[in-house]
């Protein structure tokens, strides 16, 4: 069981949150971007030190700022799956999962890793490197890593945010079954009400750092707060176009943006309908050689019209690919220097259909 409260301010933003979750129960923090959901998880896991807090887990006091109690992060027994999964890139899947099992005997480690891989149906990934995994596979491995030590509390930050819709539906169901088996309190953050309905027993609706609504899921209707998409950065690319073609079976539509065709993963019946499309620049990849025969639906030809070194690590490239608006993309300076990118050089802009948000 986990109970506690947190009061924490960053600038003018003030978070005031309290919770009470029993073993086997799942609490969802629901709210728009900037409401303080992820901040709450970061404070709970110890990534950020809270200014005022009281935090108990299984009758053990972890944090009480009024008494100066602050249990070290490594002694809290909290499993944490961050939004980006953050698998250790230099370790294999197996080594990632057994990372926290340092005081276990070798055969116990092997058994536990095999058990988790089998349970999560990812046995074939055991010796793979994280960089070769899909987003869904990474989520599975990150989940396995977080529960390998049998934590007393599990925190999940937007567990499905990086997955496409079809995979989300499959994994929601699986995660629900897994959470039930764990029988520990689980707190997760989501901006998607479907996640809340699929996984949570109770929900707290956060807005601007405070609980504005909450209760038992099922007796509770979707709150009126419309969350904004969390993965879209401030530099998102806004495009406007019309539907030119639709493929209902494949759930794909083709839109014309300034005469350039873009394929989006959404079936839109009305040809000619006006759409607004949003692309997060982080979802765009570049190729400096002609890019053909790929599984990426959108390959646009463009040219580099500007570059600016932002710092020692990053360069911002400005690309014109005929969309009527220039695209600014951050690339690592190392990569930029290595590729010998020059102004006016042709470039191929790659965007997957499901990375284009349609409104």
């Amino acid at each position, binding site marked *: 069981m986990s109970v506690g409260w947190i009061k924490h301010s960053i600038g003018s933003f003030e978070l005031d949150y309290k919770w009470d979750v029993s073993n086997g129960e799942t609490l969802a923090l629901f709210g728009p971007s900037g409401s303080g959901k992820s901040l709450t998880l970061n404070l709970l*896991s*110890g*990534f950020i030190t809270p200014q005022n807090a009281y935090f108990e887990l299984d009758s053990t006091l972890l944090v009480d700022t009024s008494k100066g109690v602050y249990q*070290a*992060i*490594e*002694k*809290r027994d*909290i*499993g*944490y799956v*961050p939004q*980006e999964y*953050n698998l*250790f*890139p*230099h370790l294999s899947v197996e080594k990632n999962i057994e*990372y*926290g099992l*340092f005081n276990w005997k070798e055969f116990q480690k092997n058994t536990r890793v095999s058990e988790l891989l089998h349970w999560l149906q990812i046995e074939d990934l055991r010796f793979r490197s994280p960089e070769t995994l899909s987003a869904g596979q990474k989520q599975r491995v990150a989940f396995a*890593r*977080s529960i390998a*030590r049998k934590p007393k509390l599990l925190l999940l930050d937007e567990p499905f945010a990086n997955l496409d819709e079809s995979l989300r539906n499959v994994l929601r169901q699986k995660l629900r079954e897994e959470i039930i088996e764990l029988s520990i309190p689980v707190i997760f953050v989501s901006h998607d009400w479907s996640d809340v309905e699929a996984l949570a027993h109770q929900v707290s609706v956060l807005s601007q750092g405070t609980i504005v609504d909450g209760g038992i899921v099922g007796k509770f209707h979707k709150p009126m707060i419309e969350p904004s998409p969390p993965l879209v950065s401030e530099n998102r690319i806004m495009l406007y176009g019309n539907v030119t073609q639709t493929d209902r079976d494949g759930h794909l539509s*083709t839109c014309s943006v300034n*005469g*350039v*065709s873009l*394929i989006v993963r959404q079936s839109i019946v009305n040809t000619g309908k006006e759409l607004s499309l949003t692309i997060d620049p982080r979802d765009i990849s570049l190729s400096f050689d002609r890019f053909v025969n790929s599984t990426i639906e*959108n*390959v*646009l*030809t*463009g*040219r580099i019209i500007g570059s600016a070194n932002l710092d*020692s*690590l990053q360069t911002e490239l400005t690309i*014109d*690919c*005929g969309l009527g608006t220039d695209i600014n993309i951050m690339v*690592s300076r*190392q990569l930029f220097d*290595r590729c010998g990118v*020059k*102004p*006016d050089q*042709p470039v191929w802009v790659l965007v997957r259909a499901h990375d284009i948000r349609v409104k």
Partner: protein
Amino acid sequence: MRVPNVVQTGKQSPFFIAGFIPTVLYLSFIGLPLVGLVLKAITSEGLIDALTGSLVIDAMLVTLVSSLTTVVIIFIVGTPLAYVIARAQFPGKRIVDITIEFPLVLPPTVAGLGLLMIFGADGFIGKMFSFFGIDIPFTIVAVILAQTFVAAPFYIRSARIGFESINPMYEHLSRTLGRSKIFTFWHVSFPLALRSIIAGLTLAWARAISEVGATIVFAGNFPGRTQTLSLSVIAGLEISLSFALAVSLLLISIAVGILVVINIIANQTKWRSY
């Protein structure tokens, strides 16, 4: 799928031409003296004799011993320092930053003089060592101290960038998985910054090998004792030009080797930044 044809080909832009001419001029400025030196060295008489002579062999030994010791010292002291600077926020951090990078802009001869003032017979630390009968100036220890002084910022800067480029969430996750800060440093932060660390060590080593100014003031230029390869070029000019050319050829070969190593490291995907 239709794609726009916006690629312009053929005519080069004025921007490209404006960059091309200075590039050619600069490359010629750097390349021609090196080519001239190499050509003169390999065609001069007595190249093999000079390279196998005791002066060069002694200088080579002093260079290897001093520069490798310097690199070890820089690694041991500079790694935790770079990590703290990359991760911690504390009052006066900017002053620490400036102090660490100061040797990069300080004339090496001034650095040598400063070291002499502290470690010399009348210096604050020198006096303490003298009490135990240990003299630091004009010994190989002085060579090592001078090299450390000028080369350390190259390593600390590179390692710091390496640590800064790691997403702190990796370190936090390691802690949530029960691992201590020290374990996390050695098993997460260090391997993820390894490429920057190796590149920094290689650069620092190169700087240590090429060091002259601080060393000649603080350690002198004594063959077999404090004379490094770089210092022997100066001494060689007084003996014969062909000797200086031979040692220069050796130093250029080492520099090329170091550049090749740095490029291999830069292209190693397994050591890339995360």
